[in-house]
């Protein structure tokens, strides 16, 4: 790997201290056991089919002042910031493109992953996430309205505790709406991790990790992320990794469809609040302006009187 001379680099042989702790290499069974307690409840107190979005979904728009539209989504520990900028002409293009384009970039903070330090240069996972995000957003944006222009969508993942792709898609949907980019429908996404016959809805990083390790037996495992346009009943992107049979895929799809639908009212609420807030703000500004004008008029009157008198 070539040395990145634009940044300060640490020593080449540095490794995370976690490699030397006792529980660095745990067996598959140990890891699996840690996910659930004796009552079949997940470590953070959720039931298997319970999504974090139900209780702890925290999202707001208008996060980045310099961007046209922005959003912040927090699923307990997973934290994602998204900003959307004004459309600009597609750079380095010879031909006229009938449809506008969406440019997505997903980036992990160097300190975002609990297991290792992320490199500064974009790696394969970030590129794959960027592509998945673009595919999820393309069907919902009215791209014919800005031909030959591209909208930049930037995602920064501050902390990764599972389901970061679905958090990123939700954040991007909010930010696009905040930036007033015309869209057909609200886009929502959700993930599920599959370990054997158990389905973990909206998984944490630990659950995703176990689901991506292949077990010794021939049982199902994997992670599925699905994004939907709920009003139009359309799936805009579907990503599966792991190994599972048809039945498992079908059940997971039904669950994800339901979860995506439950997200819609929450997102609608955030958007409505946003509109109300910006309306109030504008009203307040207008009132202030009126006040100033009146004060000015009064002063002008006084001066005129003085002039007339003087």
């Amino acid at each position, binding site marked *: 790997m070539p040395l990145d001379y634009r940044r300060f680099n640490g020593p080449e042989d540095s490794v995370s201290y976690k490699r030397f702790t006792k529980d660095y290499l745990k067996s598959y069974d140990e890891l699996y056991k840690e996910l659930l307690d004796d009552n079949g409840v997940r470590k953070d107190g959720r039931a298997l089919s319970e999504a974090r979005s139900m209780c702890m979904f925290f999202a707001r728009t208008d996060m980045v002042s310099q961007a046209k539209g922005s959003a912040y989504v927090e699923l307990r520990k997973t934290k994602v910031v998204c900003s959307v900028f004004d459309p600009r002409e597609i750079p380095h293009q010879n031909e006229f493109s009938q*449809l506008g384009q969406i440019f997505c970039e997903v980036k992990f903070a160097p300190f975002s992953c609990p297991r290792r330090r992320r490199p500064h240069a974009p790696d*394969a996972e970030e590129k794959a996430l960027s592509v998945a995000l673009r595919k999820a957003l393309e069907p919902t944006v009215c791209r014919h309205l800005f031909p030959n222009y591209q909208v930049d969508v930037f995602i920064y993942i501050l902390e990764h505790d599972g389901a970061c792709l679905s958090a990123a898609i939700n954040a991007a949907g909010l930010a696009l709406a905040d930036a007033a980019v015309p869209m057909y429908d609200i886009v929502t996404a959700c993930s599920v991790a599959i370990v054997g016959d158990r389905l973990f809805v909206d998984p944490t990083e630990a659950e995703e990790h176990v689901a991506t390790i292949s077990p010794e037996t021939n049982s199902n495992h994997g992670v*599925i992320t699905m994004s939907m346009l709920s009003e139009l009943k359309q799936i805009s992107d579907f990503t599966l990794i792991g*190994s599972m049979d048809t039945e498992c*895929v079908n059940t997971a799809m039904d669950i994800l469809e339901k979860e995506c639908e439950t997200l819609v009212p929450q997102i609608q609420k955030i958007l409505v609040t946003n509109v109300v807030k910006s309306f109030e703000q504008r009203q307040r500004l207008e009132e202030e302006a009126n006040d100033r004008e009146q004060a000015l008029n009064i002063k002008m009157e006084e001066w005129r009187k003085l002039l007339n008198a003087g």
Partner: protein
Amino acid sequence: MAGLLLSPTEKVFIVHGVQEDYRSDGRSNIDYRPMELETDVVSHASGSARLRLANTDILVGVKTEIDVPSPENPDLGKIEFFVDCSANATPEFEGRGGEQLAIGISNLMQRAYHSSQAFNLKQLCIFESKQCWKLYVDILILECGGNLCDAVSLAVKAALFNTRIPFVKAALMDGGNVDLQLSDDPYDSKLLDVGSAPLQVTLCKIGDKCVVDPSAEEESCSVISVIVGITGNSSCFSEDNSSPDTGGKFTTIDMNGPGSVAPKTLKDAINQGRVAAKLLDKSLGEALLRERQESVKLKKYSYGFLK
């Protein structure tokens, strides 16, 4: 695809044909086009295969290197996919023009081979937490005539089937380092167990129906296609028929294109893909076993690109 121009009427013709289950080249919606497959075409590689599916031409070479296993998985080997879109396919790929497509395909392959149920990396381990084999699967796309993903996955499986890994003759422990001596004899080598390696089937949504193996013309009529990766059946790839039927599990599902699909259509498509993959896997196994027998009897004639 590059340089392909279709008039609206031509597109309507294709869409109507698909609706009637009778495509413009005479196939039904679940038929593949004829393919040509030859293994062992590149002598510098440990395993290689060339697949020609109508106008799509793929050359795959597998190279092996000794590497240190990653600390998280000390008992696993490594596999890496690299796709190169040759400018021979279309002038648009000149320089770095094909990079986007290449990254997309290699990511898809990497994900399809991720699970140990698809490809067991334990067979690449030499010496736990010290040394392992790293397979470089280099995919060269020479011509694009539609349906790249399927062709790539078939050619990769064939090349891996053809790959020989030399036996380790001796290992010297020197402090913490291991010094390996490899066998020089090309026949003194082991074959990989690739029976369960996944095949990918692209289902192209045209109108309301899905077709397998779309031609470049058909691809331009569709806004969305579903790619499913399905593990293979090991019993099709071994000469004794005793091993049980396995496979048929999904290792990847992905959507490609700017459109979207209804949940019902997606479910139908992945089922259709599973059926198609099973048939494809069976015929690939037969072809590869036949070729291997021929090469054992020294009857095999090498065609390369001269045919």
